[in-house]
């Protein structure tokens, strides 16, 4: 069986499929992922301190009626995109040549470097492992795994204790810093990455606690702006929209053309979009509070 692009190279299907070819991860994202995962490999081997399986519908999921899988927005977008597509026949030729400038996270891109290879000759040693599980269950979210770095205790254990409603002054107890904060850039990267991962896993409470931990450890840290941005997103995901918007506006005012502009505007847009009675106001359930 031939592939569509070989069989019907002039078809719309082939044209669409051809648009996939330029996509690739950014080196920064790659380095960040490697560093985060290596922490798990080189650390405790994965201590279960999170206990929340995979990504769930935690933060930001409580809006009634938001579950429709194919929204009008998507349909409209398709029509719009197809209009653009059909209106510009030049795409079919060599027009689509620009490599995807996948934008890395600016703060991390300059510091997240993979550690040097330690022992290539032993690279296949893990092959002696037992049976393959084709669809392994996803266990605790990356955030909680990343903070399982053996060098310091985890700042929060969301699964062990159901998260209380988040307050702007969190009551979570965090261990004091074990290292001198000023020069620990890789520690900063790990801390911010852990918060990001928690947010991706929709553990907004965990993300906020990790950001509190970051702020305590790294006063005026190199990634302070990234952390501040993440906090706005985490607050929004947690349902504390007013505070999220306030902080996002402050950050945007400080740096209106900065690299985080798009993400800050997303926070503001969501805050504005949700200003309808009943749409928000109550804290949303956290990842750890959802069964």
């Amino acid at each position, binding site marked *: 069986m031939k592939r569509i692009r070989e069989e019907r190279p002039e078809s719309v299907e082939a044209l669409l499929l051809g648009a996939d070819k330029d996509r690739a991860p950014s080196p920064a994202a790659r380095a960040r992922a490697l560093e985060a995962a290596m922490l798990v490999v080189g650390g405790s081997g994965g201590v279960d301190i999170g206990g929340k399986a995979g990504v769930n519908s935690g933060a930001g999921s409580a809006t009634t009626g938001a579950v429709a899988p194919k929204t009008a927005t998507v349909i409209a*977008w398709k029509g719009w995109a197809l209009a653009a597509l059909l209106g510009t026949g030049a795409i079919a030729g060599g027009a689509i040549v620009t490599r995807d400038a996948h934008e890395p996270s600016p703060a991390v891109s300059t510091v997240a470097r993979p550690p040097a290879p330690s022992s290539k000759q032993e690279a296949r040693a893990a092959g002696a492992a037992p049976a393959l599980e084709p669809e392994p269950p996803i266990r605790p979210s990356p955030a909680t795994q990343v903070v399982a770095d053996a060098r310091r205790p985890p700042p929060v254990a969301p699964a062990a204790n159901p998260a209380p409603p988040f307050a702007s002054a969190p009551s979570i107890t965090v261990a004091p810093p074990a290292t001198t904060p000023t020069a620990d850039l890789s520690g900063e990267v790990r801390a911010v990455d852990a918060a990001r991962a928690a947010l991706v896993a929709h553990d907004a409470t965990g993300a906020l606690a990790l950001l509190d931990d970051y702020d305590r450890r790294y006063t005026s840290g190199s990634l302070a702006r990234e952390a501040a941005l993440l906090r706005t997103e985490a607050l929004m995901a947690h349902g504390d929209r007013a505070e999220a918007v306030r902080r996002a506006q402050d950050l945007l005012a400080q740096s209106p053309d900065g690299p985080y502009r798009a993400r800050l505007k997303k926070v503001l847009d969501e805050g504005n979009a949700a200003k309808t009675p009943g749409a928000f106001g109550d804290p949303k359930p956290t990842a750890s509070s959802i069964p």
Partner: protein
Amino acid sequence: MLALANEPGSGGAMMPVRVATVSREASFRSLFEEHYEFIWRQLRRLGVHEDQVDDAAQEVFIVAARRLGDIREGAERAFLFGIARRVASDVRRSRQTRTGLLSVPLARDAADPAPSPEQDVQRHRTQALLDAALDDMNDETREVFILFELEELSRSQIAQLLGLPEGTVASRLRRAREEFSAIVNRAQCKLEVGGGSP
């Protein structure tokens, strides 16, 4: 980890743990180097939005790092793909419940610090339409479709990766191609009827 710690020749009484750790790290690094881009691409094709795909790929490898001892030699890619399917499914599901932050596919274009050339914008649009079409596909057929049409794996490679009989792959692939064409045709019809306005 236990299996590695007990490897023969791993040194004296104080050495096995260290050797095992080094070995785990080297093994994982090799796994990562070989498969990261593949997994990233599949996540994207499985419907993970571009602003989440980096994190999703990271999550896949963090899970893999924790389960390194469960990965059978020669089946690494299948193992990782299995994780990626789950992560993608979770990300898609959670994304569908979050409307505000996630429903502006062109926001990135509009907000890019550097102005996008026209062809770059067109490319983004085409990619977005491809994403939308893939997103409309059935999970089962989409997997086979992307692996064949985009990753350009053979049917036998797909069968191995998904743990399916080759005949099943072939039949799913036929259905997938019909489904994809139907989705594209429907979108074209909708455009013609609706005039293409968003």
